[in-house]
């Protein structure tokens, strides 16, 4: 990321010493910003933007990046035991993609002026949030299928509209990510399909995984609209295009035919087609658990964080070495240049 991207709005207070000019600039900036949003154009890093818009985006994009990174743990844990070489290769490619998603998203957040180290530190200290689904354990191989089908599936429903997010770098990152997510969901579905149509033990393993991941996957869209304070503003800014509940409904409607094709069931006795609404009705989710997990009391919240911290700590000497080496190299180049000029 080039350093100029880190600069905030062009308020040249110090240079001008003129508050009136600054105010005029801000007003013009706000006007232009409102215009861009109204005409569904994109805000780019150098454009003026309200501080609250910037803050809200940094929060969302960095949380999204953290989710990709923590999400590598439950799946990475199964690379060594994948039951066939083909599955091992697919899983490895998938987890590698998630690392790549993290990289795209951290880069997008950097264009908003938030240094990457700061985001890493926030995750390290436990201050940053990430999708609570990754605080659930991946106990069996079928969980890898359920994660692909349900978790990546929910990610797709959430992220496809984000490809049109008003902030350019975020929207463009989402376009690249969405392409890969559909491969992720498909591989999860294939795992479950093979298990469901395999031995009795495999079938049970698949059903058990779907039973455990279904509810938490539905909660990935966030709390019900009534309890989601940031949603409204986010929609006005055209970062979000649909509410949490709208997306959740869309996801459930999508899952029902898919689970039938899998030969499995969804663990919700209230799930029923509603002719009038043209949608499936579904039962209430356990929001107490959801908020408990968000507060860091998920089954594996501590373990995930400790794993992340350990990797950061153990890699510190490597990162220091890379920086020191790059500095030596730069000094070497300067010396060579000085020598050339001297000659």
């Amino acid at each position: 990321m080039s350093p100029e991207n880190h600069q905030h709005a062009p308020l040249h207070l110090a240079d001008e010493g003129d508050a009136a000019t600054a105010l005029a600039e801000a007003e013009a900036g706000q006007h232009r910003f409102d215009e861009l949003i109204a005409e569904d154009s994109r805000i780019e890093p150098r454009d003026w933007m309200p501080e609250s818009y910037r803050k809200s985006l940094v929060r969302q994009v960095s949380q999204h990046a953290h989710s990709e990174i923590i999400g590598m743990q439950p799946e990475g844990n199964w690379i060594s035991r994948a039951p066939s070489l083909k599955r091992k290769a697919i899983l490895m490619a998938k987890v590698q993609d998630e690392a790549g998603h993290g990289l795209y998203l951290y880069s997008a957040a950097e264009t908003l002026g938030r240094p990457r180290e700061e985001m890493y530190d926030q995750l390290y200290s436990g201050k940053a949030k990430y999708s609570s689904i990754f605080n659930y354990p991946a106990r069996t191989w079928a969980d890898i299928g359920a994660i692909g089908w349900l978790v990546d599936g929910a990610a797709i429903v959430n992220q496809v509209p984000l490809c049109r997010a008003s902030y350019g770098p975020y929207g463009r990152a989402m376009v690249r990510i969405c392409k890969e997510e559909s491969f992720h969901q498909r591989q999860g579905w294939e795992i479950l399909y093979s298990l469901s149509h395999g031995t009795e033990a495999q079938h049970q393993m698949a059903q058990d995984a779907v039973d455990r991941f279904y509810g938490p996957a539905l909660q990935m869209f966030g709390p019900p609209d009534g309890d989601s304070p940031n949603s409204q503003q986010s929609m006005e800014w055209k970062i979000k295009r649909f509410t949490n509940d709208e997306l959740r409904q869309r996801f459930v409607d999508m899952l029902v035919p898919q689970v039938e094709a899998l030969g499995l069931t969804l663990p919700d006795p209230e799930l029923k087609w509603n002719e009038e609404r043209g949608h499936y009705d579904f039962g209430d989710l356990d929001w107490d658990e959801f908020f408990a997990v968000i507060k860091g009391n998920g089954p594996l919240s501590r373990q995930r964080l400790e794993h992340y911290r350990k990797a950061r700590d153990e890699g510190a000497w490597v990162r220091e070495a890379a920086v020191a080496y790059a500095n030596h190299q730069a000094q070497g180049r300067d010396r060579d240049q000085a020598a050339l000029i001297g000659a």
Partner: protein
Amino acid sequence: MSFASHDSATRQSQGEAITAEEIASSGAKAEDATARYALLLGDDALILSQRLGAWVSRAPELEEDVALANIALDLLGHARFLLTYAGTAWDKTEDDLAYFRPEEEFRSCRLVEQENGDFGKTIARQLIFSFYQHELYSRLVQSTDTTLAAIAEKALKEVDYHQDHAAQWMLRLGLGTQESAQRVQAGLDSVWSYVEELFTDVEPITELGDIAVLPSTLREPTLNRLHQVIEEAGLSIPDMSGAHGADRSGRHSEQRGLILAEMQVLARQHPGATW
């Protein structure tokens, strides 16, 4: 195969898209000795891939999670080609050979079986193995066995990246800080005694003529290049006197059984199942 490993968008190395499935369905049938050679090469790739896969979500930088997974994925690809081809001699699949062969029948070298250790040790192991593999594959492309030649040709492009990755890190760590130089030197010292095994002429290679590459012919070019990088990184070449005399005939490391126990556990719980 609907999701070849090259579907991943974060892939860094270039390779032609041939798949294990294509080898299986090509009708090529390996001779017994050729198959045992393919198995030996495939086992090295498989075990090292298994080792590197353990770095995922634990690397010092996010970029390294991507890079190490990428290398592990390449090696797994090589292993799949080689095991699939070997299996044609005995009507076995790649998974029969990977998951249902006992420990003592693997032919992997001890270098790849060594624990990851810290990043310095992993890079030391990567440097040695990728340089060796590069010398090997750049000759194997001339194999009179066309399937082995094709596998080598695809693998070579990927190994190009692997050795570049290892050499770059060797320089960064060797010339970075005092601590990094110490750690990577300790890594080299710890794995160096397993280098000689790579260059030992063992059966069935000795009876394969132009089908195979004689390991002893790789010794000089590989060591020359290794010495060059290690010196450039300001590190010292470990003493060879402690080298373990070596062949690949079952005198394997203590670690092999543990690696396989983990790799094979689920497949063996469900014999005959498809995944």
